[in-house]
């Protein structure tokens, strides 16, 4: 019985406009407009989900390098042996001596491009991997083969004379193996150095911001400033400057500062600093606006001086929040400073971009791991500190 009280007929009476809207031409136009907007958006942003699969092989080197970043290395002992080869008339050139005890013999010393050639090496370290190079007249090296020496330290390879300019060529066999203890790789040293630069970039940017934002925030607090027209104007100007500066991305600021003071960490410090002044200034101001007037009244009532009132009733109410906001901002700035290098602001982003451009995937992987680690650590540390402070 109860169900019958709400009849379907009742609905048009309750929503008289709805059905007519759906049928109206305005609704059709709106639908068409939405279709157009998203259709254009799809095209202009070149969305093509298929590429995620068809081009998967392009990302594979980076992803697989993440598993084995360039962190540690050992010194390499190298044995080199050389043998000359001519693709034309002339005297066989004299070469720098081979490593003592090793020698390289070619089945022939003259020939043409495409000729088969047997390469024999001996006197190398047994059971060790090596590379056979072909060096042309202008010193360019082509990798020919990888090989492994046998138990007597010998190897035999058959190669074809490659197509490469010049008449005088050198065939080079290089056998190398690691010796000595593991030590940090060159990449790890560079990445560590740049990571430290990055963290300090964030620190300096944040510090500059705090020093400027603390006094400014009092000018941007409505409860302090809006008591007379002059104060209210200052308050409005301060807040407007905060809002404008806050809306400009640090990356764009860094681009501008890189033009101004040159590419490098200083540009990054300035960019993070200016953006953080605005961001912190706004947060600080709001904190000052939200203080409880009760304790101020109570401390005043004890006969305290104005300075004592600030010390005992105002500061305890704002300092913990100020510290929390500052750490939060530093946290953001560390993350920001890792990418600010992309636009010339210094820090680790700069070398990460270099590694990627040079297709040095393992080195890039080292940088990516360093960023992940440091950001996660800072995140955790700031959470712990903030919890303690508030």
């Amino acid at each position, binding site marked *: 019985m109860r169900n019958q009280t709400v009849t379907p007929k009742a609905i048009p009476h309750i929503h008289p406009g709805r059905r007519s809207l759906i049928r109206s031409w305005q609704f059709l136009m709106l639908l068409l407009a939405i279709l157009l907007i998203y259709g254009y958006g799809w095209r202009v942003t070149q969305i093509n989900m298929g590429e995620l699969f068809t081009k998967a092989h392009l990302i594979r080197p980076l992803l697989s390098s993440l598993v084995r970043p360039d962190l540690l290395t050992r010194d390499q002992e190298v044995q080199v042996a050389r043998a000359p080869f001519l693709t034309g008339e002339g005297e066989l050139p004299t070469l720098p001596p081979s490593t003592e005890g090793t020698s390289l013999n070619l089945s022939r010393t003259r020939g043409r491009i495409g000729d088969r050639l047997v390469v024999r090496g001996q006197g190398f370290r047994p059971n060790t991997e090596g590379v056979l190079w072909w060096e042309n007249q202008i010193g360019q090296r082509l990798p020919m083969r990888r090989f492994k020496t046998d138990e007597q330290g010998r190897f035999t390879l058959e190669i074809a004379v490659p197509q490469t300019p010049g008449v005088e060529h050198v065939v080079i066999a290089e056998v190398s193996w690691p010796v000595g203890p593991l030590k940090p790789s060159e990449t790890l040293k560079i990445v560590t150095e740049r990571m430290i630069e990055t963290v300090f970039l964030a620190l300096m940017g944040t510090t500059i911001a705090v020093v400027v934002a603390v006094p400014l925030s009092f000018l941007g607090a409505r409860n302090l400033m809006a008591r007379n027209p002059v104060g209210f104007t200052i308050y409005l100007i301060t807040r407007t400057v905060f809002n404008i500066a806050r809306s400009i991305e640090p990356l764009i600021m860094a681009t501008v500062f890189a033009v101004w003071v040159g590419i490098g960490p200083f540009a990054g410090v300035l960019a993070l600093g200016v953006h953080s002044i605005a961001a912190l200034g706004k947060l600080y101001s709001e904190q000052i606006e939200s203080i409880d007037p009760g304790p101020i009244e109570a401390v*005043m009532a004890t006969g305290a*001086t104005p300075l004592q009132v600030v*010390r005992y009733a105002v500061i305890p109410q704002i300092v913990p929040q100020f510290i929390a906001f500052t750490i939060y901002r530093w946290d953001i700035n560390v993350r920001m400073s890792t990418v600010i290098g992309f636009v010339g602001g210094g820090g680790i982003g700069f070398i990460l971009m270099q590694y990627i451009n040079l297709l040095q995937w393992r080195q890039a992987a080292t940088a990516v791991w360093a960023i992940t680690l440091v950001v996660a650590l800072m995140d955790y540390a700031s959470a712990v500190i903030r919890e303690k402070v508030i």
Partner: protein
Amino acid sequence: MEKLAFLEVEHLTKVYEDGTKALEDVSFKVERGEFVVIIGLSGSGKSTLLRCINRLVEPTSGKIYLDGVEVTALAPDELRRLRRQIGMIFQQFNLVKRASVLTNVLSGRLGYVPSIWSLVNYWPREEVQRAFLNLERVGIADKAYTRADQLSGGQQQRVGIARALMQEPKLILADEPVSALDPATSHSVLKYIEDLNREGITVLCSLHFLSLARRYGRRIIALKAGRIVFDGHPEEIDDRRFREIYGEEAVEVEIR
């Protein structure tokens, strides 16, 4: 010239900047050691009256004398010295929530200690001892190092009382000290204030509930729209008077 009473309020008027008339021609005298309860509806001017006495609110006109001193004529420095003798207890306790109970109590002593030391929160040994003594009086010495906001409402108000006691006050102004507390806690807090009064401190205490006013006050001043409409013994407030103070619709609520 006749001798002045301990506290004299003469033709006190307060008009706020927005035009609100909070007090209008209020005059009364209080002798040393009295326990005066001020009652009235919200907005009747109770808080403004108490705050005019230590000039947290500047009176528009009228005069106030405390112990022979014209409060309304004092320069800022003299006013601060006078405020040391007037303890104040607030409805919302007005503690610094993030500071320790001890720091909150010590802040009651700010008017007496040299400014420089107090700015770095350094307190002489005897002041810390005094703070512990006063905390013991209100029964919460064990909470000295707890953060103020960790305490219950009743405990926070006792911290407020201890802070007022640090001033060694001659007069205590209590602005609805129990309005934020439950009935049982209200009585315990008011008993502490009653004890202080027995020791000779004059008390001016505003209260919301007439039943509490009857129980603790030996004299009641009633305000209505910024004017005194009653000043006398609690027993003199009968039904007719009650309606005069609280309006025709009001019914008396008992708080035991």
